[in-house]
């Protein structure tokens, strides 16, 4: 289940995975740029406006009717954040034409619709349709205000803002309310045009008869300008010990700890870091689950994950406010055990086979098959599932200890019940 790569012009890479395993054809396109305050909010607004209408289908209803007619073809757009890159994602999926009656022309029809919405929007006088623009600006405002509604997501957002203050990584993938208020139609349209014309574009396809589709896409892609050079994603190696507490209307407190990993995707020690994270908190056999949940009954969920581009390891748990000190102590003790090499051969092996299982499982889902390559795309180093499996298999106990020794605690954050939380911010 590997991708064959070819170039379709300046900065356009096409990745093809020919397979008849799935009932659907899946296409994803990614346009990436540096994550920065100047453009983040503008980029976030683009997919919302584009989905309102294209030149060919100038309303949501017309687009939706076309997709329904094509047997529930689905089309979506979003913005992703990976390390310090912001990525515009376009997604298109339709039932494999071979399973449908009268459908040969459907494939072309579907792809043209998709391409039109991404690259040929409803434009008037050098800017987006004004109604679409102003309505979607209001929707993005609601979206940004709505981060508060999901308490875990809100805690993670606040945590990253506090831990990485001053670094581009602190910027939310949808930008911020202050920048949004200043956005104007012409400026966002200009930004969109430069993204589509001169930023690196990667197109992934999974399904059957991909040569036909590749030819069609080659015709659709217009002349592109010179490709913008992006900055190399960089990690940050300075860790400052800080402690923040915030209050809101919650029944459950959310505890987050952030460690600088001092190694990222391009480093030799990347896979040992992932295995260390696995032993610590990715699985139900991991130290955090066993000790914080199963033994101490302090949490329903507790786990850790690695942001491999920026180099952060994050631990989070939903706990009772009154038990926060106890939970913190047990969590820190688990990280310490990892550093001391205090884990069994069985824990190491279980973690490795668990990670290999989830890696191989990605071959069974077209979207995962594509999205798992994003890290490689951003870092200019695509790795096949087999390569990654080999890398994980080769990790030994001492590699894990070395990775754990490099973990440096930076920020501890608690979102607790209003009223309980006093002036406890600061360093400790």
């Amino acid at each position, binding site marked *: 289940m590997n991708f064959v790569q070819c170039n379709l012009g300046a900065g356009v890479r096409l990745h093809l995975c020919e397979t*008849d*395993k*799935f*009932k*659907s054809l899946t296409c994803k396109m990614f346009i990436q740029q540096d994550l920065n305050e100047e453009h983040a909010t503008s980029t976030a607004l683009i997919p919302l406006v584009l989905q309102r209408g294209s030149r060919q289908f100038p309303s*949501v*209803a017309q*687009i*939706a*009717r076309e*997709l*329904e*007619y*094509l*047997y*529930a*073809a689905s089309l979506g757009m979003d913005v992703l954040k990976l390390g310090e890159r912001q990525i515009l994602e376009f997604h298109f*999926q*339709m039932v494999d034409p071979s*399973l*449908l009656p009268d459908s040969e022309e459907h494939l072309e029809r579907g792809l043209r619709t998709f391409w039109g919405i991404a690259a040929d929007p409803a434009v008037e006088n050098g800017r987006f349709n004004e109604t679409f623009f102003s*309505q979607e600006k*209001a*929707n993005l405002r*609601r979206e940004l*205000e*709505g981060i*508060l*509604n*999901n*308490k875990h997501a809100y805690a993670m957002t606040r945590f990253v803002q506090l831990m990485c203050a001053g670094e581009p990584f602190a910027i939310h993938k949808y930008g911020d309310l202050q920048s949004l208020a200043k956005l104007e139609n012409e400026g966002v349209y200009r930004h969109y045009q430069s993204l589509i014309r001169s930023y690196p574009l990667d197109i992934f396809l999974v399904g059957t008869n991909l040569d036909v589709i590749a030819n069609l896409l080659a015709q659709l892609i217009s002349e592109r300008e010179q490709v913008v050079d992006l900055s190399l994603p960089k990690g940050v190696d300075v860790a400052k010990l800080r402690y923040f507490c915030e209050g*809101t209307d*919650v*029944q*459950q407190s959310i505890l987050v700890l952030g460690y600088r990993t001092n190694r990222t995707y391009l480093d030799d020690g990347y896979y040992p870091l992932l295995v260390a994270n696995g032993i610590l908190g990715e*699985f*139900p*056999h991991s130290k955090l689950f066993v000790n914080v*949940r*199963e033994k101490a*009954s302090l949490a*329903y*969920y507790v786990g850790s994950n690695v942001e491999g581009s920026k180099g952060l390891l994050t631990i989070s748990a*939903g*706990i*009772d406010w009154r038990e926060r000190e106890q939970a913190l102590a047990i969590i820190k003790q688990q990280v310490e055990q990892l550093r001391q090499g205090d884990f069994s051969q*069985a824990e190491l*092996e*279980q*973690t490795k*086979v*668990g990670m*290999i*299982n*989830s890696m*191989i*499982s990605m071959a*069974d*889902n*077209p979207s995962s098959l594509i999205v798992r390559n994003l890290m490689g795309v951003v870092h200019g180093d695509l790795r096949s599932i087999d390569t990654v499996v080999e890398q994980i298999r080769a990790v030994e106990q001492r590699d894990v200890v070395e990775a754990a020794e490099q973990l440096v605690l930076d920020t501890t954050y608690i979102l607790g019940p209003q009223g309980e939380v006093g002036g406890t911010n600061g360093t400790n």
Partner: protein
Amino acid sequence: MEQIKLPTGEKLWQSQLPNGLSVFVLPKPGFRRTYAVISTHYGSIDSQFRREGEQVLSVPPGIAHFLEHKLFEEEEGSVFDRFADLGASVNAFTSSTQTSYLFSTTENWQEALIQLIEFVNKPYLTDENVEKEKGIIEQELRMYADHPQRRVYSALLEGLYQRNPIRLDIGGTVESVREITKEQLYDCYYTFYQPGNMALAIAGDVEPKEAHSLIAEHYPEWSHYSGPVERFFPTEPKEVAKDWSEEEMAISRPQYLLGFKHDPIWRGEEILRQQLIMAIAWRLITARSSQHFNELYDKELVSDSFGASFSCHPQFAYSVIGTDTDDPERLHDELTRIIHELRREKLCPTELDRLKRSLYGGHLASYDSFEYAANRVISNHFNQIPSARFLPLLSSITAEQVTAVFTDLLDWNRSSVSILRVKG
């Protein structure tokens, strides 16, 4: 073994073991992963029951979910460890009518299947380990309580139902969970985990006969009560409990849900037919292709989260529509008007045909997710819904049946609104 041809051209193999367990195999050649699930036809609403010749038992709300947590407990070692050794991931979930245990693996599926069968059939409960679980479940319930969509939905069910246990949270309450005892958990287990009340489905690159014999060989003898279980449900009055309810929470924008209570009159194939009719009817309001959706969107009364559903079971049936909105009252007036208009609007054949194509395509694509496909096979089996009848039923649906949803089914005298407002 019986073979059923699915709309995708694939085959589903069905059989029943002598002990009563129903077995389904969905071969997926070329896939790396194997997924298996064992379910019991027992969920949060089954809190009053009687085994033949015995007394009626009443147990606290949340017990089915509690039992699901506890089956992972073992006298020695841990279930999670045993699956971790195989590189398999294991999990479970509880709904109002069903409890399911599952694994997914790319290696050793045979061994993982044996382990799954074994742990579901080997409860190990002590007063101590039951007590210990209460702290974990309390945190789970508090997490849900902080979740706005879940809060507004729970409040809606409490508004729609006066007595049916569907009005209670699947996990129960912090208080009801504290009451649960080891003895009650064993009572529920030995009543509802008998093989005749259960089903197993497996999907992956597996040979149906091999899977079947493996299951037959390893499914243990059931030496406990084996026979009919009478379930008791309070008689639900026609009227809703409350036609309007409001709560406050620290959120950015109000949430609005409108629900309709129906008489649960559908059985078997009729459930599937009604699900398809409702899917089309709700799309006339909530789909992006609908004129009504686009009007509401232009008036900034609905967001992208605008959607609707229909839940149907022999014990309850209800429909829900809703979204987050700045102005719940105005949205309520608009929906009232739209549903009223749809009583008179004739659904044009092109639109009906287009919506059917969309449902058909979505159904075909759903077989790419074999978790979804296998879980649906089991819930269809419990409700005697013939999976393979999807396409003929879809084709048979008429514009009149869709209009009848608006004229007859959505009864305003049996509706309830739940609103979550912004605190402060």
